[in-house]
């Protein structure tokens, strides 16, 4: 029989994978990998502010991740170089977050849980937050699927078709901030972007349509969660990084399969 904490961990990981997989597909198609990284690094600043002000950590993370994503989008729209802006903001937010956390009494020892996740300590309340957030992200993506896809192909083309690409970008930004907030406890701020990008990249070589790539990315993310937890149990390795390592193995397998198909 599995222990309760393991079942909760598996459910938490699968919940994150359900949101991160399809969202990750958009991150890959729009070449926003570094954007995802920056938003997730900013989560640490959200943790610090939440702990300092006695607010729920999820709320602090969500607010700061959203603020970061909106700031980056707005600066990029004004002609700022995207990669430099992301580099400055992402690492500054992480550094300020780490400095700010050190001022909050009694938190220093728990910092690695926020950096690398603590999936084995997921509570029932955390599960409600993770699945609620993931369901919201999936609902947003299904609702706006066609519009998001058209905006991804070409924003001017989308505008000429009567869509508002700015609104679609905002929806994607909101979904990204929500995913960062729900994934913080599972894989930690430093590895959230990996859960967005690696399953989607692994699915890309196997899928035939955008929709099947989104579904496959969620399935690969879920399988990586179960595989990573198994790895963690067998070899006593940290759970969050083990999940990402399992996803990376899935990517390697998919890339090899794709290469074999082409030869």
């Amino acid at each position, binding site marked *: 029989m599995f222990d309760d904490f393991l079942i909760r961990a598996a459910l938490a990981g699968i919940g994150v994978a359900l949101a991160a997989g399809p969202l990750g597909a958009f991150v890959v198609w729009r070449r926003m990998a570094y954007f995802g990284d920056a938003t997730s690094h900013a989560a640490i600043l959200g943790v610090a502010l939440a702990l300092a002000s006695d607010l729920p950590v999820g709320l602090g993370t969500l607010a700061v991740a959203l603020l970061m994503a909106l700031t980056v989008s707005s600066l990029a729209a*004004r002609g*700022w170089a995207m990669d430099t802006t992301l580099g400055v903001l992402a690492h500054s937010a992480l550094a300020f977050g780490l400095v700010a956390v050190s001022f909050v009494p009694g938190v220093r020892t728990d910092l690695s849980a926020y950096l690398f996740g603590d999936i084995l300590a997921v509570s029932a309340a955390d599960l409600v937050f993770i699945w609620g957030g993931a369901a919201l992200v999936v609902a947003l993506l299904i609702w706006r*699927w066609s519009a998001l896809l*058209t905006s991804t*192909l070409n924003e*001017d083309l989308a505008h000429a078709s*009567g869509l508002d*690409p700015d609104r679609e970008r905002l929806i994607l930004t909101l979904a990204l901030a929500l995913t960062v907030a729900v994934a913080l406890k599972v894989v930690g701020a430093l590895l959230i972007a990996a859960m967005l990008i690696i399953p989607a990249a692994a699915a890309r070589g196997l899928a035939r349509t955008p929709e099947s790539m989104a579904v496959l990315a969620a399935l690969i993310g879920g399988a990586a969660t179960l595989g990573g937890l198994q790895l963690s149990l067998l070899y006593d390795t940290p759970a969050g990084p083990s999940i990402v390592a399992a996803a990376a193995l899935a990517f390697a397998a998919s890339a090899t399969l794709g290469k074999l198909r082409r030869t």
Partner: protein
Amino acid sequence: MSPRGPGIALAGVGLSLGGTKVLADVSLAVRPGSIHAIVGPNGGGKSSLLRCLLGQMPHRGRIVLDWPGEAGRIAYVPQALQFDTGLPMTVRDFLATLSGERPAFLRPRPATLARIEAQLEHMGLAGKADRRMGALSGGERQRVLLAQALDPAPDLLILDEPMAALDEAGARMIEAVLQELRAQGVTVLWVEHDLAAVRRLADRVTALNRGVVFEGEARSVLTPERVLDLLSHRAAA
């Protein structure tokens, strides 16, 4: 035939990006049902002007579309697509997505599929519906982009260097399409580098290098001296 496309009036349009002046006080008028070309050097603001017209850039000044009746369909052919070329999307999926009739996770209706096949055949792309967008050559992708713009029939067509990636046959096809559209009274705003094609096909031309350098009838205004001035930046605004 009375024009079904709108007249376009730009008055004092200006645009700055990251401290750089991209467009300065651009004023021009496009006649309804005409083919109006925009020419100029790289970085002269041609594509930015189109993006202002599409409402994609926060600009200064006024842009007014004067429709003969109810506002019609605006179609746009971009210079390139931005997405990751590994996106698993076939030509058929691409056109179905842009037709706006494809609900999430459902296959398009048979009527939509039949229309897509006809569009592709018209563009010389019969049999390419199952090819991935990322696997198409530049010229083939340009033809697909033109296919999406022509169905449903546009009233205003905005083209951003449609001939850039095309071979001779592709360029001839675009010329035929433009002549067809002119006969139907569609307004065409056309950014183009091929000045010989502009002389042959456009009614009027505006030379742009951040500001309007010169404009007039396409057949008479594009003299070798003016073109040299424009492209060697001697006429920079």
